[in-house]
């Protein structure tokens, strides 16, 4: 996602990330990656629960799509850091707009399942007019 920050900002939106774990580890990640957008720490998973983000099963680790996703990530130079206390917690990507409108919702169904950036940008383009209708 961070590789698309410029496109997201050009579409008139801001970008923020929410992570698990503790602040010390989040600080190391921020410093290592040089991200400039807000990175928030949700040690108690309050936001994850509010967003209704599920946890995976350990059986997901051996799914073919996850094996392929890990291979792609390694080839792209990404390495997985410490997982923390909730290694099965899944993530998600959302586009929210003023007035607490949900413009796009993607909850990961398994580890390698991430939102297509094109879909996020499309949601932002649709919101660029007089305001897109909420989907939730």
């Amino acid at each position: 996602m961070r590789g698309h920050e410029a496109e997201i900002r050009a579409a008139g939106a801001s970008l923020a990330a929410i992570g698990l774990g503790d602040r010390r580890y989040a600080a190391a990640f921020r410093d290592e990656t040089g991200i400039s957008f807000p990175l928030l720490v949700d040690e108690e998973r309050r936001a994850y629960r509010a967003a209704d983000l599920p946890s995976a099963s350990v059986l997901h680790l051996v799914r073919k799509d996850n094996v392929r996703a890990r291979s792609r990530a390694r080839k792209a130079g990404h390495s997985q850091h410490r997982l923390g206390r909730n290694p099965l917690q899944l993530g998600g990507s959302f586009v929210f707009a003023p007035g607490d409108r949900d413009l796009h919702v993607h909850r990961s169904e398994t580890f390698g399942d991430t939102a297509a950036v094109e879909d996020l940008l499309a949601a932002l383009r649709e919101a660029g007019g007089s305001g897109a209708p909420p989907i939730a």
Partner: protein
Amino acid sequence: MGDSISGALAPIVLPDPDGTEIRLGSLWETRPAVVAFLRHYG
């Protein structure tokens, strides 16, 4: 607002790595925001 996910998230306050607390709703109060929930740092 209503039953939206953003409405449920809006009042939640979380710290950044420096300890500065941010209310989630402030992220999309004036313009849209892409919010990514990470599974891990990396």
